[in-house]
């Protein structure tokens, strides 16, 4: 293993180049992107920290195995065009991954520099390269000779887009069916503008279309056509329909006006742009907003509520901060912006007035008991510790399940009890011949990059399947 040394310029290799950000006081009032992106100087300084290890661990940590030292070397040489090409060889959505991947638990977690100091900021460099390319104008892609095979992809989220890109690059004719009016899945409806500008998503989708992929929005498989009909029309089908069904807690008062699923709240704000008065879609504004849950979606909802003008936004989570599934960075950002964390607390009922509007959330204090199956210590309510938090808006962000609409009128696709599709981990193959699946529809709600990894593996398996067919 190489020794960690002082950089050539004498700059300590210990600390990473900070990400320029909008100050918390400013950004809590707008929907503009929080992280502003590296300048060229920042990128060169950060890239120079990379040791270009012979046996790079970081690549193993990447679900789509981007050649990380390879692209960083090109950044050092100021060949940013070459760098983005290297990334795009395995990752179709670098501008998105550079922004929303949990690098700290993937590539960066395995970076050698992380042992004695901070790992190379791989995600920030990836974002820099993608943004550089976008500003220069994305190069037109060469489309390979057609194989004559047709593949249908259901869902245009990260799994579907990745599978589509890889299959198109192999010469297959790909059609993506999307139920909403806009492509991107969770990238469009779920992740807020301040974390992932929709213009970026639009341009990444444009790139996929340039590869020859046909996109059919407003097209619901399970309603317009069944999965079985798709199987007849196409040589293979990939299901990347995500986990779109919101879970509720089943407590009293959950149907009061002002109680939203995180899906609804975020869809109104992100996809339908309810924060912009020019747009018609409405969202209820509250002085006091309570968000239930501890994942990235809860952070997104809380920070969106703040930007909509709420005076106090609380996150209510039944375990402690260490157990929160959200990314560290998101938790920190939320705290900086002034979100109140009410940890080890769980809602017991939602209270309303005579007009059916939410007025408060009653919670109970929790304490951590023995670790459960997931290895996290399970919370136990402390009797008699109920307290109430005033709220005009409550957002339930406790997770989602796969949407069963896709399965309507179709047979032979095995699912487990939670409604997820059973698929081979390596290939995405399902119990139904010619049907592959990947992303949240298989794993339940997870990350953008893991869905992309699954889309990638499935594309490879579909290509092999088509060759044998």
């Amino acid at each position, binding site marked *: 293993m190489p020794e960690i040394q002082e950089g050539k310029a004498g700059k300590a290799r210990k600390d990473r180049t900070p990400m320029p950000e909008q100050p918390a006081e400013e950004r809590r009032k707008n929907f503009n992107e929080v992280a502003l992106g590296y300048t060229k100087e920042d990128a060169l300084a950060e890239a120079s920290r990379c040791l270009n290890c012979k046996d790079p661990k970081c690549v193993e940590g990447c679900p789509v195995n981007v050649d990380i030292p390879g692209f960083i070397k090109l950044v050092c040489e100021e060949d940013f065009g070459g760098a983005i090409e290297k990334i795009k060889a395995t990752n179709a959505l670098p501008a998105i991954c550079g922004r929303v991947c949990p690098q700290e638990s993937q590539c960066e977690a395995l970076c050698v520099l992380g042992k004695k100091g901070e790992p190379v900021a791989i995600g920030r460099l990836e974002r820099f390269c993608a943004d550089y390319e976008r500003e220069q104008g994305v190069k037109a892609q060469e489309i390979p000779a057609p194989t004559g095979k047709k593949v249908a992809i259901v869902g245009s989220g990260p799994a579907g887009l990745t599978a589509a890109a890889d299959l198109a690059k192999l010469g297959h004719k790909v059609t993506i069916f999307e139920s909403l009016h806009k492509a991107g899945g969770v990238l469009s409806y779920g992740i807020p503008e301040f974390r992932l500008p929709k213009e970026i998503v639009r341009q990444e989708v444009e790139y996929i279309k340039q590869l020859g992929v046909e996109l059919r929005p*407003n097209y619901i498989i399970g309603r317009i056509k069944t999965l079985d009909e798709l199987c007849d029309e196409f040589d293979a089908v990939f299901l990347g329909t995500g986990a*779109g069904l919101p879970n509720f807690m089943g407590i009293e008062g959950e*149907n009061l006006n002002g109680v*939203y699923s995180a899906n609804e709240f975020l869809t109104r704000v992100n996809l*339908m742009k309810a924060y912009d008065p020019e747009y018609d879609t409405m969202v209820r504004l509250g002085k006091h907003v309570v968000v239930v849950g501890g994942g990235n979606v809860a952070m997104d909802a809380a920070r969106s509520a703040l930007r909509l003008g709420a005076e106090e936004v609380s996150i209510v989570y039944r375990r402690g901060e260490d157990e929160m599934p959200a990314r560290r960075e998101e938790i920190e950002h939320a705290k900086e912006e002034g979100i109140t964390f009410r940890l080890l607390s769980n809602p017991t009922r939602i209270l309303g007035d005579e*007009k059916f509007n939410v007025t408060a959330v009653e919670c109970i204090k929790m304490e951590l008991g023995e670790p459960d199956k997931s290895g996290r210590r399970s919370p136990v309510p402390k009797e008699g510790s109920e307290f109430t938090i005033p709220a005009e808006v409550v957002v339930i962000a406790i997770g989602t399940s796969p949407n069963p609409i896709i399965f309507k009128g179709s047979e032979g696709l095995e699912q487990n009890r939670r409604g997820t599709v059973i698929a081979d981990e390596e290939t995405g193959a399902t119990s139904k011949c010619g049907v592959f699946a990947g992303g949240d529809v298989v794993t339940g709600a997870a990350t953008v990059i893991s869905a992309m990894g699954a889309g990638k593996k499935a594309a490879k398996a579909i290509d092999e399947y088509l060759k044998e067919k």
Partner: protein
Amino acid sequence: MAYRILEKEEIAPSVHRMVIDAPDVAKAAKAGQFIILRIDEKGERVPLTIADFETEKGTVTVIFQEMGKTTKQLAKLSAGGALEDFVGPLGTPADIRKLGTVILVGGGVGVAPIYPQAKAYMKAGNRVFSIIGARNKDLLILEDEMRKASTELYIATDDGSKGHHGFVTDIMKQILDSGEKVARVVIIGPPIMMKVGAGVASPYDVEILVSLNSIMVDGTGMCGGCRVTVGGETKFTCVDGPEFDARKVDFNQLLNRLAMYRGEEAKATEKYEEECRCGLH
């Protein structure tokens, strides 16, 4: 992608019929289902029940009443124009099969979704007693179409300007009292009418269905905004419905939830009308 408007007419004061070129939707549509449309990039997603569809021509008909900003804006569009988005068919189709005698009750623009049901029940071999109503005779829609699609057609107006002077539910009660063996009653109209109608029919030995018009965004089960309590359980109107057993529906909750954005809607409508007066639209 745009969806062309092939026909557009005002069939009653502030009530409009629009025929849209949407072959994929037309091919898959069944009675009891709905669509969601969006006028333009800045528009909201609006659910509307399918009033008719022609598979061969690839067209879908919707009927709507000018209520708020979006429906007023929609009313200004004309044949030759286009909608930004048009998606469907959504919702579980009505469970239509041969039952014997069915009563179909439609109030106001609720007559529109009743029409494809009447055709389908007739086709399935049922005796169809249809009752349609409105506040007055000018607001009554689809009378001729409904007459053709029913074994018998009854009309009621609140002011007595046509047919029975009173409510559609009065006629429904008369038929149920007449000793006629009725298998099912389907009531579609304003929520308060469905609530009252369900109450009137409840004591009789008959299945009662209503079609709900909850507020929703995506229409595929993703947002959960359309949740409604049915038989003590939370259901999503968009995927579990829109038709439910009327005896089990918590109508008070439905009415309350429909009022969620009333204040904001009134403001948006007022602003839009003001802009129209200033010649901005």
